[in-house]
C-alpha cells in the first residue's frame, strides 16, 4: 500500500463521521440468532417498534412482492406472522441500512447504492436457493451489507468519492477500479474496517473485504463467490451504481463459478440466461420500493 493510501486508511479508521450500527439492529440480530423455540414474536415486534420510522418502512417493505407477500399486512405483528421471522429480519436489516445513508452527499445520489445493495441481497438469496447454497438467509445479509465500504466513503470522503464516481462513469469502468486510481484503496478495504468496528461475524467481514478480490479470501470463499457473482450480475443488469460498465462478462468463466461449483454442483448446468431475465422483475420492484421508502410523498 502506498503512503497516501496508508494515510487514507488511518483516516478511515477514525470513521468518526459515519453513524454506528443502527440502534435497533444489533439487539434484533442477537435476539434472532437464538434457537427459534425461544423467540417470541411480540419481542421482535417490540424491538422494531422502538424506531417508529424504521417500523413504518418495514411495513411498506413487508407489503412488497419482493418478500413474497400478496395480501396486505397492516401491522408489524401480522407482517411477522405472515412472512416469518427470517424475512422480517431481512426487512428490518434492509431498512436499518437505509438509515446509514448520508442525507446529503453532494453530487452523488446515495440512494443508488442502497438500491444496488437491496437488489444484490435479493439476487443473492434467490441465487442461493437456486443452486442449493446452504444458507440463503446469510446470503441475503451478505448481499445487503457487501458495499458498506461505499457508504463509509460517502461519509468520510464525499468530495474524493464524487470524483471517483465521475471517473468510473466517464470511463464506464467498475467502481472499485476507479477507487484504486483516485483513492488508492477500494470500498473492500474500507468495508473490512467497518465490519471489524461493528463486530460483524467473520464470514460477513470476509465478504465485505474480498467481494472484488476473491483470491484474498482465506475462508468463507463460497459465500464471497456467491456475493461477488450476484453483485456482478446486478451491475451488468442495470442495477449497479447508476451507470453502465461497458464490458463483456462470461459468467461461466468467472473464477467465482469455478469456486462455488465445488459447494453447489448444480451450478454446472445453471441457466444464467433465465436467471438474468428473472431479474427484470426485481429491478422494477426494487426501484419502486426504494423510492417509496426514501422519497415518501
Amino acid at each position, binding site marked *: 500500500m502506498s503512503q497516501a493510501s496508508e494515510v487514507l486508511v488511518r483516516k478511515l479508521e477514525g470513521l468518526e463521521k459515519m453513524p454506528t450500527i443502527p440502534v435497533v439492529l444489533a439487539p434484533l440480530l442477537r435476539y434472532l440468532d437464538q434457537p427459534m423455540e425461544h423467540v417470541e414474536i411480540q419481542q421482535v415486534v417490540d424491538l422494531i417498534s422502538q424506531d417508529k420510522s424504521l417500523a413504518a418502512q418495514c411495513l411498506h417493505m413487508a407489503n412488497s412482492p419482493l418478500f413474497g407477500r400478496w395480501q396486505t399486512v397492516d401491522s408489524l405483528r401480522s407482517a411477522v406472522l405472515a412472512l416469518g421471522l427470517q424475512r422480517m429480519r431481512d426487512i428490518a436489516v434492509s431498512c436499518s441500512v437505509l438509515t446509514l445513508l448520508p442525507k446529503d452527499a453532494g453530487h452523488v445520489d446515495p440512494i443508488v447504492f442502497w438500491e444496488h445493495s437491496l437488489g444484490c441481497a435479493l439476487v443473492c438469496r434467490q441465487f442461493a436457493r437456486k443452486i442449493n447454497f446452504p444458507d440463503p438467509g446469510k446470503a441475503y445479509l451478505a448481499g445487503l451489507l457487501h458495499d458498506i465500504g461505499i457508504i463509509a466513503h460517502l461519509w468520510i470522503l464525499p468530495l474524493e468519492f464524487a470524483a471517483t464516481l465521475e471517473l468510473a462513469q466517464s470511463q464506464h469502468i467498475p467502481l472499485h477500479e476507479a477507487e484504486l486510481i483516485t483513492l488508492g484503496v477500494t470500498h473492500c478495504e474500507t468495508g473490512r474496517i467497518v465490519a471489524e468496528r461493528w463486530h460483524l461475524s467473520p464470514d460477513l467481514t470476509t465478504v465485505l473485504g474480498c467481494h472484488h478480490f476473491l483470491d484474498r479470501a482465506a475462508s468463507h470463499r463460497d459465500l464471497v463467490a456467491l456475493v461477488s457473482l450476484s453483485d456482478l450480475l446486478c451491475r451488468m443488469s442495470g442495477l449497479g451504481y447508476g451507470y453502465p460498465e461497458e464490458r463483456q462478462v462470461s459468467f461461466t468463466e468467472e473464477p467465482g463459478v469455478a469456486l462455488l461449483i465445488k459447494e453447489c454442483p448444480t451450478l454446472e448446468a445453471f441457466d444464467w440466461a433465465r436467471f438474468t431475465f428473472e431479474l*427484470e*422483475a426485481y429491478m422494477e420492484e426494487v426501484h419502486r420500493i426504494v423510492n417509496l421508502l426514501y422519497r415518501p410523498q
Partner: protein
Amino acid sequence: MSTPSPAPSRSPEINAGPPSPHLVQIRDLVYRVAGIFQPDNKLRLLEDRCGRRMQVLGVATVREYYECLTIKPIRQAEMIALLNEITIGETCFFRNQPQLDALRNVVLTRILDARAKLPLRHLRIWSAGCSTGEEPYTLSMMFLEEMSGKLKGWTFEILATDLNERSVAHAKHGSYGDYSTRNLTPYFRQKYFTARPDGLQVNAEVKARVSFNRVNLLDDARVAFMKGVDLILCCNVLIYFDVLSKQRVIQHFYNNLLTHGYLFLGHSESLYGVSEDFRLVHLPSATAYIKAEKRQITQQVKI
C-alpha cells in the same frame, strides 16, 4: 403495543393477487418449448395474451388453457398462436435500445479489434427474420452514425432475410406508419426519413446498405451462402421452431459467423438447452452469444 399503520403502497400487480400457478406453468412451458421468458412483472401481460386465446377457443380457465397447450391435439398449433400473441406488435425501429447500446458501445469495438488482424475493412451483418425491415434499417442508421467515429475508413453491408414474401416486399418499399416509428427520436426522423402521404419513407442512404431477400432459415442450400458474417441478429424467430429445427439453424449461424462473431436474440430469448456451440455473454443490460471454442474437444469426447 401499537405499531404504525401507514397505508401500504402496492403496485397494481399485487392488488390483483398472486399469479395463478397455471399461469406460471404456462410461462415455464413457453420458456422450455420456445426459449422466451416472461419475468414476474410481465405475468399480467402473459395472462392477458392467454386470455385472448382462451376467448378464441372458448376456454374458461387458465388451467384448461394449460391443457390446450400440453395434452390436447391442438397443442402445437396453439403454442404458435400464443407465441404470436406474445410477440405481437414487437416490430418497430429501435425496438430494443439496451441491446443496440451494447452492440454499439461494446460489441462493435470488440469486432473491430478482432477484424483489425484481417486485411478487409468491411463488416457483414445479417438480420435473420427481418420481418418488415425495421431492424435492418435501424442497424443501418446506427452504423451510418458511426461512419465518422468507430467505423471511419470502414464499409458495411446488412443482409436482411425473412420467410414471408409480403414482409420482404414491405421492407424493400421502406415506408412506415406511426406504430413502427414510435421510438424514433426527432434526430433520426429528420436525418434518415422523408415524410410522405403513406408514412415515413426511409432515405436512400440507409436503404443502400441493406439488401433484402426471401430466405427460409431451414433451407440449407440458401443459408449456406450467408458466409463470413460478423454479427447476426435473429429476434423472435427461433421461438417458433422445434428443437431439431432450432439446432439446424444454430448450426448454420455457427458456420456462417466469423470466429469473433456475435449472435443476438430477442428480448428474454435464450439458447439454454438448445446449443452448446454458443456461449452466453453479458453486456450492459443485454445478453448475446459468442462462438464457443470447445467444439473440437466436445466432438472428440463424443467419439
